[in-house]
């Protein structure tokens, strides 16, 4: 039977071949996406492992001599430089990953990207931060990404032992420092957002092929084939297509692996070799996808009964009921509840938000048919045009079928709207300071070890840098209350760009960077008067230095270099507000990019599903439609019917999914960060419109078929 079914599948004429190609194409896309997701998980794990080797935990024991190790953050042009200071305490000390030997004092290794920067910029902006001998390149074994800026600097045990975060290690760690479950969860959601539309497409295509094979199956049943044998034929056809599609999917994955690795999904690109597949991954996909397609074929055929008289619907579907709204409403309620009750731990917050979001996701898919039915009934009630009436009646009759093809779009748009809403708002609230603002040009270094004073020569050196406008030392406020600032400054030293003192005050309380957290520096800001005299102020330790520049990269980097050389024991290098934020924002933008990919891919796939569903609908109604056309109904009326049946639910679903997604994002942001949702940038809407237009284009591609299948020959009853 299987051999016979296979022969039918591959030698069944042009139509059978077209059907095979359609299913194979759907499977190929799905397989490619699945492989990319699995390889992405492997790549993230590889990144995390190498990240862990940069931030090892203190370790003791064994025969190895301890290695002093300190990892610190520095910045250049808004990019993070990871600086590792090491010092071996004996000949058996472990060697950091990626370099042949531990550098001695006055030596260093730099990553390829950092070497490029070192070569491209004047020494007083970057090179002077690493005095000594350049020993060579840090290899990929220590780099989380090809773009990683990393320097491994040698020092004496005394020097390195005094650095912030210094520790002794006897082995370089290889356990991921970040919880893998979080990353896997995110990738799982991404995979779901992408794969759901693919599965819907495969299911729809299989169901369509069952309808198209009506005559053949009916003939087989007439000569005695059992329903089970018909199922075998259908399953073999789906499996044959799935095997071909899976093979093409593997080819697609390896063809696009390089460009895919270059997309900074986690904020930085992967090495192409990191996007690898394990034996288990390959087996899982190579065997699982064809098996899944066979199951999908069985499930989709369950809904139609191949009788000797042809394909008939098993039963008229029962109208969906309003209880389908419960999960979605419950999900929104959970998020509203989180507004008033925010758990203190991250785990507690995850325990509230994740079920809320998942409930909304599942709830939207569950409620979709009911919403489709209600919308269609309203549309039918007020329809004055025949096309609207026919389309609305069809949707109201079988809303599950009408919604099925677009459920993938709904899910993908909800997930991406939540992501884009959250990302846009966080970036808007925490992104880098605007170019030209005082903040964008303010370099602050916070001392790990308090200094008693700042030498005048340092101020002179800083003022000598072109573009530096002010250089100020902030001293420790000895009187700390809940509302006071941690620093104090003489009013005569307070640069006008950062505020002013109260009338008659001599010393003011100020924050370490001369601007409040999440607020911009302002010349009109009045700082509270400190309860410290000018004499007392001079005896207080210096806790930070704030340098105001014109915001030019040259001035900022030269200032940074001067400060690092003067105070080399920093934990976090002298930084501009937004160095860390722009790093964070870049990571988020990487995720936003991924969200955009999902939007386009899911809408294109949704369009394909809709097109297949449209073809199925036309095939079912070719006779009444063609007879209507013969009776004088213009083709444009029929075209409008098809467009309304597919485009209206799709557009409505897109609006609902985006609305619900942004609402969920807003509730999340209010509860978690006290942010109000910032509307996504126009780019988001452009991508949605382009995606929807693509989708409509795919539907429009079925229109010539409408004219063909409703031609006069269908009316012949002889």
């Amino acid at each position, binding site marked *: 039977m299987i051999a016979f079914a296979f022969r039918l599948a591959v030698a069944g004429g042009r139509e059978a071949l077209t059907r095979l190609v359609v299913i194979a194409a759907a499977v190929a896309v799905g397989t490619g996406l699945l492989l990319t997701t699995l390889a992405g998980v492997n790549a993230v794990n590889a990144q995390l492992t190498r990240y862990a080797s940069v931030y090892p935990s203190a370790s003791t024991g064994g025969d190895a001599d301890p290695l002093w190790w300190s990892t610190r953050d520095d910045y250049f042009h808004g990019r993070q430089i990871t600086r590792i200071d090491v010092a071996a305490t004996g000949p058996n000390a472990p060697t950091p990953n990626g370099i042949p030997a531990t550098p001695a004092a006055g030596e260093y290794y730099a990553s390829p990207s950092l070497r490029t920067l070192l070569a491209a910029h004047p020494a007083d902006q970057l090179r002077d931060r690493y005095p000594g001998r350049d020993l060579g390149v840090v290899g990929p074994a220590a780099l989380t990404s090809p773009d990683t800026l990393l320097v491994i600097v040698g020092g004496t045990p005394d020097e390195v032992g005094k650095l912030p975060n210094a520790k002794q290690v006897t082995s370089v760690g290889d356990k991921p420092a970040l919880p893998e479950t979080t990353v896997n969860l995110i990738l799982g959601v991404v995979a779901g957002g992408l794969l759901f539309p693919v599965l819907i497409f495969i299911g729809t295509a299989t169901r369509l092929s069952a309808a198209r094979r009506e005559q053949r199956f009916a003939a087989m049943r007439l000569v005695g084939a059992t329903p089970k044998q018909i199922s075998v034929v259908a399953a073999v056809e789906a499996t044959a297509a799935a095997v071909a599609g899976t093979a093409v999917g593997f080819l697609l994955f390896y063809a696009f692996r390089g460009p895919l690795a270059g997309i900074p999904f986690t904020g930085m690109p992967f090495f192409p070799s990191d996007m690898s597949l394990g034996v288990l991954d390959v087996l899982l996909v190579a065997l699982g996808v064809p098996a899944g397609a066979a199951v999908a074929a069985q499930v989709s055929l369950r809904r139609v009964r191949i009788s000797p008289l042809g394909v008939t619907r098993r039963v008229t579907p029962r109208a969906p009921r309003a209880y389908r709204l419960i999960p979605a409403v419950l999900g929104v309620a959970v998020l509203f509840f989180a507004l008033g009750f925010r758990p203190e731990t991250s785990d507690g917050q995850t325990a509230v938000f994740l079920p809320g979001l998942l409930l909304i996701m599942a709830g939207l898919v569950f409620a979709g048919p009911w919403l489709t039915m209600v919308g269609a009934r309203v549309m039918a009630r007020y329809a004055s045009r*025949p096309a609207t009436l026919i389309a609305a009646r069809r949707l109201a009759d079988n809303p599950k079928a009408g919604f099925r093809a677009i459920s993938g779009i709904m899910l993908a748009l909800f997930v991406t709207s939540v992501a884009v809403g959250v990302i846009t708002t966080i970036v808007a609230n925490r992104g880098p300071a605007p170019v030209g603002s005082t903040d964008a040009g303010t370099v602050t270094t916070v001392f790990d070890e308090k200094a008693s004073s700042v030498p005048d020569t340092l101020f002179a050196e800083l003022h000598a840098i072109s573009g530096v406008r002010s250089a100020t030392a902030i001293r420790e406020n000895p009187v700390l209350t809940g509302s006071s600032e941690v620093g104090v400054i003489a009013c005569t030293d307070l640069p006008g760009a950062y505020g002013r003192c109260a009338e008659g005050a001599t010393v003011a309380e100020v924050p370490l960077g001369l601007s409040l957290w999440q607020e911009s520096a302002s010349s009109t800001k009045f700082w509270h008067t400190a309860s410290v005299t000018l004499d007392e102020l001079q005896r207080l330790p210096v806790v930070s230095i704030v340098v105001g520049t014109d915001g030019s990269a040259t001035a900022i980097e030269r200032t940074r270099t001067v400060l690092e050389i003067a105070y080399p024991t920093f934990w976090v290098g002298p930084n501009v507000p937004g160095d860390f934020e722009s790093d964070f924002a870049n990571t988020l933008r990487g995720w936003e990019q991924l969200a955009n990919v999902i939007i386009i891919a899911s809408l294109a796939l949704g369009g394909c599903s809709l097109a297949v569903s449209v073809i199925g609908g036309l095939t079912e109604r070719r*006779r*009444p439609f063609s007879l209507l056309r013969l*009776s004088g109904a213009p083709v444009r009326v029929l075209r409008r019917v098809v467009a309304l049946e597919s485009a209206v639910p799709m557009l409505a679903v897109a609006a609902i999914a985006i609305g619900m997604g942004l609402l969920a994002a807003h509730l999340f942001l209010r509860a978690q960060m006290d942010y109000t949702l910032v509307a996504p940038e126009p780019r988001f809407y452009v991508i949605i419109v382009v995606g929807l237009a693509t989708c409509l284009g795919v539907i429009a591609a079925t229109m010539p078929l409408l004219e063909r299948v409703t031609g006069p020959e269908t009316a012949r009853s002889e």
Partner: protein
Amino acid sequence: MSAVIEAREVEFSFGRTPALRGASVAVEAGEILAIMGPSGSGKSTLLHCLAGILVPDAGEILFAGARIDTMAETERSSLRRDRFGFVFQFGQLVPELTAVENVALPLLLSGVRRAQALRRARAWFERLGLDGLQQRRSGELSGGQAQRVALARGLVAEPQVLFADEPTGALDSLTGEQVMDLLVDAAREQGTTVILVTHEPRIAAYADREVMVRDGRVNAPDRIAS
């Protein structure tokens, strides 16, 4: 009386296979004409040419004195929608619409307001013995009921000509006769011309006149109804 619709020396081929070879027939206003012939004789093709569905390769089709074979497709479509009615053998009802909406469809297509179209459609249900079936879907109607709904749809716009292609072909003889009784009565009441394609003499007997199509040609009238 002059002919309301007429075919003159019409020729039509499906690819290389000729279906009509100089067929001529004229139908007078209010007349019921039966076109008979064996399978493949070309009788449905002749009906499709008369209705402006197919454009003949040669010859002329005239409706109310004007040639319709030279009209553009859009003009012929609007002619079919506004002046002609159709009843086919089966499968002409739009499955997702209720029976009354199916009957109202030609009116809606012509731009009649929904409420008025439904009111006019409902009137036909009592007339054709379909009371209580207004809200049924085509799948919930018997063959005879569906054909009566189709007949109501064909006549609701008060067409000048009703084309009926094997209207009882899918029905048993008793139901077929009931449908034909209704068709003829309604057509006579409205003064509608009927062109009926059938291969059953029993059905053709309802017509005023019969013509026979053989090998793509129309034979001389065999009988004029009394």
